[in-house]
């Protein structure tokens, strides 16, 4: 790390300010009015769009490269279990165990 301890404190405060302001903008500026009809459809579709994007980037992106890693296999196995209606925490446990086992073996 190229930052001194003091500089790092400043970076931490800047991060905290940035995240707080990002979360505050929408509620402070938009709120209070009922939504127009078209907007509720878009907002309802936002969760699946964002969640799918978060999952695929977490699983397939290694920096700017697309790659398959041990955790890709682990999350894939857990997804199959979830589709078979295995409880979430068991599926998460399976994802972690499969990933750790693959890393230990290869």
């Amino acid at each position, binding site marked *: 790390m190229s930052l001194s301890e003091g500089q790092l404190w400043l970076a931490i405060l800047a991060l905290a300010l940035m995240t707080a302001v990002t979360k*505050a903008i929408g509620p402070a500026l938009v709120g209070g009015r009922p939504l127009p009809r078209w907007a509720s459809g878009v907002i*309802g579709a936002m969760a699946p769009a964002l969640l799918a994007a978060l999952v*695929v980037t977490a699983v397939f992106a290694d920096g700017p490269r697309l790659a398959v890693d041990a955790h890709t296999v682990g999350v894939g196995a*857990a997804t199959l279990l979830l589709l078979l209606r295995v409880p979430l925490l068991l599926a998460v446990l399976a994802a972690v165990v499969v990933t750790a086992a693959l890393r230990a073996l290869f």
Partner: protein
Amino acid sequence: MTLLRDPVFRRGLRLGVPFGLVSGALSLSFGVVAVQAGFTPLQAIVTSMLVFAGSAQFAALSILAGGGSFVAALTAASLMHSRFLAMGIALAPSLKGGPARRALEGQAVVDSSWALANRGDGTFDRALMFGTTVPQYVMWTVGTVVGALVGDLLGNPDRFGLDALFPTFFVGILLAELRDSRGRVAAVAGGAIALALVPFTPAGVPVLVAASAALVGLAIPGGRRPDGPGAAGGARAADGEEAA
């Protein structure tokens, strides 16, 4: 405090417990990696308590640990965090009070609480969101404390497969969103946009641009579902809770 007596808030607290366990494991790995990168334990803990955003913290940390500059770290974290801009706009009409109060209430948003509180008709269950966030904030802090203090003993936390935790939990919430055709189309489009952009854009941009896939909501009405995505996701989370 009427909120504490609100049954919806209490249901949120229960729903948030399994997500809190995951938060704890993730923030433990944040604490470990931060201290190894040169944060003091106190700095790692204060970061988690004030920033409380996994993707932004890990984005900044990975750049700082690699010798990157303050500006590069803050930019990457802002991009990773920018999805909360869209989430905050969506959430705004469901919050109470004037702009200052709503801005404060908006701080309680995390990915899972936002998704679980989403009723699928453009409105959010505010009390459920607060409830779901509380165990995650507590465990996010506790995990960081543990990781920052015992980090040197653990070595690289990825060895334990902890990086598989967060995507698996999001798969769990996502599956509940795929019950109607609007959700399926939005998910496929969002995932495809994000993957296509990964090689060409800085981290965070793919997820931000993928939010535009929600425009399918203009063409495909979702309608109000009797057990909207919040309830469905909640059922899954509750299953997991029993298994614990």
